[in-house]
């Protein structure tokens, strides 16, 4: 009774088709879904539905056929509905027998007395693997398939082959900073503990990768611990990456992935899945190997800020510096400081004298967002509270509100300097001096230069909006004064544009 209940639980677990937390098995699960999608045209929901309702038929019937059919028809793997066999609910073995009869009838090479599987493209890494070996005849091939599907006891030598073939795809734990548990789990027991059909998924893992991109002919796979999210991102990513020119792939891959991730995260509001993400790159050749596994998680703080459309749109801009281009959103989600980039950007605009090009709102948003994060963190430190307190999400909501209010206030108050000084040359000279002091992070120098010129402009000195803003945002602010000071310099240059 108890055993029966356990089996039912196990079956429910299996039929739910969920990620396991091991990227390698999960790549296999996604590959399995992709394979069924290519051969039968099922999308994720359909695969899951079929798997849930008739998982024996999917696993022992549809899967072996899909695997062989895809191998023999890699250019156009779709199997028309009328060509597919139908399966009846019976024992697992009988379902497989039906499938195997179909496979033999359709794909057996009578001269060679084997299913002549081709170890190329997605199957390249299985060159010496079980049923791919040229000497492996049809009966032996069937036997190996049954072992993979756990219809027969798995012989240890299967694992030895699997081990030889795929263990080079398992990067060391150091490359996967957040997933220490991927380390050497290749033993029969650990593999099957992960998932009772791990062996099936091992066969499918190449189908998870987007194939042969760029000059290097590398394969890409986006991974997060959430199946829907990973499926969705890889689907979109494949479309984006195909549109790229060969030489663009290397430099654009992270950018495009982030763009896709952010779009999908916003669509599905699944912010929680953003922290454990990887781009896994491998190259197929004589020496199959993992090229890299880049960790691309977006910190929660940054994620919760870019979820706001206005903020995101304003930071989602590529700005031109003297010798390179920088995508602000990328820097932001990497958690890198924006201030040094904006200083260089404003300097570049000043040098080019093309003030019309100054991305006013992007500068304003980047600097205020950063200032508020700095203030938020300083406040947290002061109160000695952990960043992950109970009010974690409330704090973020109030941070977003503060950012927006500050943008409103500062964009008005800092703009008052636009009417300051009559001569363009004077403004430019002042802006340059102020920028130099900002590069040196010299608050004393900044205020000294500013106030000396301001001292001649009584009207602006006595404007309480302006005077108080300088006092609050720069003089008494030791945490984020540079950000506000830089906004002021930008406004000085914007005034230059009007005259």
């Amino acid at each position, binding site marked *: 009774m108890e055993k029966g209940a356990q089996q039912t639980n196990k079956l429910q677990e299996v039929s739910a088709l969920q990620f396991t937390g091991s990227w390698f098995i999960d790549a296999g699960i996604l590959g399995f879904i992709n394979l069924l999608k290519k051969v039968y045209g099922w999308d994720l929901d359909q695969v899951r539905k079929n798997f849930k309702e008739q998982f024996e038929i999917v696993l022992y019937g549809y899967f072996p056929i899909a695997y062989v059919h895809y191998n023999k028809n890699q250019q156009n793997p779709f199997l028309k509905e009328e060509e597919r066999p139908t399966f009846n609910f019976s024992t697992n073995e009988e379902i497989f027998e039906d499938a195997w009869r179909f496979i033999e009838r359709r794909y057996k090479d009578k001269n060679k007395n084997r299913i002549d599987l081709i170890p190329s493209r997605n199957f390249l890494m299985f060159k010496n693997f079980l049923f791919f070996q040229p000497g492996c005849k049809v009966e032996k091939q069937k036997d190996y398939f049954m072992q993979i599907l756990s219809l027969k006891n798995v012989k240890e030598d299967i694992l030895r082959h699997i081990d030889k073939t795929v263990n080079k795809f398992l990067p060391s734990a150091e490359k996967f900073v957040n997933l220490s548990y991927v380390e050497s789990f290749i033993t029969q027991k650990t593999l099957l503990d992960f998932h009772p059909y791990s062996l099936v998924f091992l066969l499918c893992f190449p189908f998870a990768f987007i194939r042969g991109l760029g000059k290097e002919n590398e394969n890409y796979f986006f991974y997060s611990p959430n199946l829907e999210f990973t499926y969705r991102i890889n689907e979109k990513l494949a479309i984006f990456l195909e549109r790229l020119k060969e030489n663009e792939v290397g430099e654009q891959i992270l950018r495009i992935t982030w763009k896709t991730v952010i779009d999908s995260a916003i669509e599905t509001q699944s912010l929680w899945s953003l922290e454990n993400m990887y781009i896994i790159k491998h190259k197929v050749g004589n020496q199959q190997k993992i090229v890299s596994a880049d960790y691309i998680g977006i910190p929660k703080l940054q994620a919760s800020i870019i979820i706001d459309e206005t903020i995101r749109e304003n930071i989602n801009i590529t700005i031109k510096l003297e010798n390179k281009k920088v995508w602000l959103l990328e820097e932001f989600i990497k958690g890198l400081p924006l201030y040094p980039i904006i200083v260089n950007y404003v300097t570049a605009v000043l040098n080019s004298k093309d003030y019309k090009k100054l991305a006013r709102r992007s500068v304003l948003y980047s600097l205020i967002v950063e200032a508020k994060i700095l203030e938020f963190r300083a406040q947290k430190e002061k109160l000695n509270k952990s960043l992950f307190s109970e009010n974690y999400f409330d704090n973020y909501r109030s941070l977003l509100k503060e950012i927006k209010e500050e943008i409103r206030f500062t964009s008005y108050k800092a703009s008052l300097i636009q009417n300051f000084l009559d001569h363009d040359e004077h403004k430019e000279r002042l802006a340059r001096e102020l920028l130099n002091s900002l590069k040196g992070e010299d608050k004393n120098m900044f*205020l000294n230069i500013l106030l000396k010129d301001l001292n001649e402009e009584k009207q602006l*000195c006595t404007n309480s909006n302006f*005077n108080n803003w*300088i006092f609050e945002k720069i003089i008494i602010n*030791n945490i984020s004064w540079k950000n506000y000071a830089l906004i002021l310099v930008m406004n000085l240059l914007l005034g230059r544009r009007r005259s």
Partner: protein
Amino acid sequence: MEEKQSAYYWQKVVGNTPLNIDLKKLKEASKESFRNESDNYKQKLVYNMLEAIKNNDQSRFFNILLRAINKPKENFKQLWETLEQNYDVMPNEAFINFAYTIVLGIMATYAGGEKSEQ
């Protein structure tokens, strides 16, 4: 309204009492005190103060400041009181905040400006 923590940038413990520089209060005191001086005088004063701050010269700055407010008949009582409560030798970073607060307070009082403080 919650008081901004950063307004008390510099803090020193005297006996058991923490001594804070409340820069907001200082700015108000500076503004009130110099309201009735002439613009020309104040502009020159600000210029001299800025020179002293630029060189991080605390004694020069206080020399200028104390001479400027050493006028018993005029309205410097509030500023004197604030200074008496707060003044001490400060680390440079705190001095800069302190000194620019006084300067900005003076600059807010120019009569030539069209808008005057409420």
